[in-house]
């Protein structure tokens, strides 16, 4: 196994753990944690490909990762603000109980 494949596999496992958490946990905050894990797995791939793979310019992979980190921060802020707003309204963060849109 090449080092790149190792990092890719690590990222894949991390991504799937995040995905499973987002799909199965009831608590909205853990769902957000799962999404963060998925984003981080993608970032790891960017850096791994930048280091080991072919790239057009020396800084491309780094740029991708930096912007992804910045956007992930924005995503976390808005997501957690939504969780807090939902909690204010429904007095719960349990995703299964927030089912008004199901009609």
């Amino acid at each position, binding site marked *: 196994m090449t080092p790149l494949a190792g990092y890719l596999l690590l990222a894949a496992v991390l991504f799937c753990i995040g995905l499973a958490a987002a799909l199965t946990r009831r608590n909205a*905050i853990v769902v957000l*944690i799962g999404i963060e894990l998925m984003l981080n797995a993608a970032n790891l791939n960017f850096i791994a490909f930048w280091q080991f793979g072919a790239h057009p310019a020396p800084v491309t992979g780094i740029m991708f990762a930096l912007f992804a980190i910045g956007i992930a921060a924005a995503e976390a802020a808005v997501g957690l603000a939504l969780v807090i707003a939902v909690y204010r309204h429904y007095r719960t963060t349990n995703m*299964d109980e927030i089912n008004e849109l199901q009609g």
Partner: protein
Amino acid sequence: MVTGPFLILAALILVGAVAAVRMRNLVHCVLAVAVVFVGLAAAYLQLGAQFVGWAQMLIYVGAVAILLVFAVLLTRGGEVPERALFSPGWHWGVTIGAAVFALLAWAIRQSPAAHPPPAAPVQVTVEQIGTALMTHDVLALEVTGLLLTAALIGAVIIAMNDGGPQ
């Protein structure tokens, strides 16, 4: 060839990630996910991306983990829930996760892109990153800045108390 430091880091990250999604207490989840963030920062350093590593540490451990902590405490998540942690259809989620992983692992095995010939390691100085941010990627930088500002204001407005300061 997989080296020892990589294995240690991978173990740290994966244990942290599993703990982050399996722990009962939400604060423990957040602390575990902070461990994952630190582990990933170390992985970036190992990959030679110093700047990204420290930025990851600064933003994820310093900002996102703290944000998660605040969200947990503001929604009274510090208390251990009595009921089940997982949704009723949790086995579907696990199945989907496993299926995605199988697909990804197959792709990594198959794809020639994942097994490149060993190349000379790239080195990027902070100056290069700064120059790129100010020249080639300046539009992206501006857009990200705008997005962050919008997110900041949006988050404040969403989380603001309804009958609050008006």
